[in-house]
């Protein structure tokens, strides 16, 4: 999946259909559009409430050829519809020259195309997974539609997982004004810009990414630090000490923190039982005073790093660490020893952090990725949104 870079800051969104298609009944269109929005509510806390008039987050129109946004439609076939990312307003336009149909293999299925366009309205770009709803090509009518895992991961990386809290949809949010887009800001205190070495980084079960440094933590956006951070770790995770060595979130939704010879387990922000416990008890075969830990996207196993070595831990196996471990970190081509952090990020890539630099790892090639600018790259610029800091470690690139 791919993210455009903006998202709504509220999860209770409103919409209105200001221009209906000429060939379908309004009530049928209302129902299909509501169903298309519901696709994105299933796995997140997003809610979509229709309004007859007035300001809304997403405005929907069925128009033909040139319709005022400079991106004219082209008659039947070709471009079916387009939508704007949140930073550009979030509206969705459908080419009314198409033969929009409901529940039929004839023509173009309104529900599927609408659900796709609303993905853009929420901040998703096109995916290169052909089975994804967010793939750019219309695949014809799909009588048994189901949201692809790729799409679920995408929307949850922006709005978090569903927390099953009850959020009545007929309640209008206190303000229905469009949230203004605010450009990324440098962190309130820019110590992290002067010294961007971190203790650890991890992504929570809710899809939020955090950087820990000393007694403080930073919540990250897609390209910088969220407003209002850093905050104290002791406030964010009561009972958790400062100067954490390593952390990761496992597929059971729990986050594990490691420091010295001990570890803590949290469910969200709450300690999940009596901790700390000894690493030797809960993670047999894993050393203490770790450098980094992560769940690798390549196989879902837990990897621990210390000095020039790494261990693979499989909770389902006995023993959980095979006799062939530890192995040299040099197996991970291009990854240095003595890491600070390892992370499987929300875009599915694996990242390693050391000092003020970071490396993106290409899982399929099992080597540090090659890109422009090359890796390692300065963490300050790319993760903390620091200004006036280099975006590349390439010599002379200032």
């Amino acid at each position, binding site marked *: 999946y*791919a*993210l*455009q*870079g903006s998202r709504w800051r509220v999860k209770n969104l409103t919409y209105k259909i200001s221009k209906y298609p000429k060939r379908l009944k309004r009530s049928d269109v209302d129902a299909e559009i509501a169903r298309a929005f519901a696709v994105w509510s299933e796995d997140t806390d997003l809610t979509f409430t229709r309004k007859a008039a007035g300001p809304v987050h997403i405005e929907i129109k069925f128009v033909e050829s040139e319709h005022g946004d400079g*991106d004219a*439609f*082209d*008659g*039947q*076939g*070709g*471009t*079916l*519809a*387009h*939508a704007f*990312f949140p930073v550009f307003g979030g509206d969705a336009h459908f080419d009314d020259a*198409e*033969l929009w149909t409901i529940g039929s293999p004839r*023509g*173009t299925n309104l529900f599927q*195309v609408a659900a*796709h*366009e609303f993905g*853009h309205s929420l901040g998703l*770009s*096109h995916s*290169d997974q*052909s089975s994804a709803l967010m793939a*750019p*090509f*219309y695949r014809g009518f799909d009588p048994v539609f189901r949201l692809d895992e790729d799409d679920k991961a995408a929307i949850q990386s922006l709005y978090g997982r569903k927390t099953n809290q009850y959020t009545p949809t007929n309640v209008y949010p206190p303000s229905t004004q469009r949230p203004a887009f605010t450009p990324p800001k440098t962190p309130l205190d820019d110590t992290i810009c002067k010294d961007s070495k971190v203790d650890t980084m991890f992504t929570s079960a809710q899809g939020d990414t955090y950087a820990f440094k000393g007694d403080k933590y930073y919540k990250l956006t*897609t*390209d910088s630090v969220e407003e209002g951070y850093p905050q104290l770790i002791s406030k964010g995770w009561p009972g958790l000490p400062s100067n954490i060595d390593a952390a990761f979130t496992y597929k059971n939704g729990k986050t594990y923190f490691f420091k010295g010879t001990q570890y803590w387990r949290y469910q969200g922000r709450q300690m999940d039982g009596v901790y700390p416990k000894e690493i030797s008890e809960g993670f047999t075969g894993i050393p203490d005073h770790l450098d980094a830990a992560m769940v690798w996207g390549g196989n879902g196993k837990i990897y621990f790093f210390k000095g020039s070595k790494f261990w693979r831990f499989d909770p389902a196996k006995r023993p959980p660490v095979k006799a062939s471990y530890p192995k040299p970190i040099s197996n991970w081509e291009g990854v240095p020893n003595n890491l600070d952090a390892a992370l499987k*990020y929300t*875009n599915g*890539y694996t*990242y390693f952090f050391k000092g003020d630099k*970071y490396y*993106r790892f290409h899982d399929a090639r099992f080597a540090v990725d090659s890109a422009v600018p090359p890796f390692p790259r300065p963490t300050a*610029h*790319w*993760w903390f*949104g620091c200004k006036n800091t280099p*975006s590349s470690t390439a010599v002379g690139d200032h």
Partner: protein
Amino acid sequence: AANSAPVSTTTQAEIYLSQFGYLPASARNPASSGLHDQKTWVSAIQEFQSFAGLNITGELDEETMKLMSLPRCGVRDRVGTADSRSKR
């Protein structure tokens, strides 16, 4: 759905690749088409083929034009390089 926008010529492919973010916007203007060099053209086709899951030949072959002719969403596949920071 009928296709009112089949791609069967290089010029149509240029406009398509520019519309969806594989070539600079200038290529959408027929008067300026053909101004970019061969390397840019081949890499644009390769990028589209890679994104669409086709064999990456760098050539405007029949399979590629067939996919370019499918009905699709009008949003660009490549959303600008300005936010490459988000690709960390």
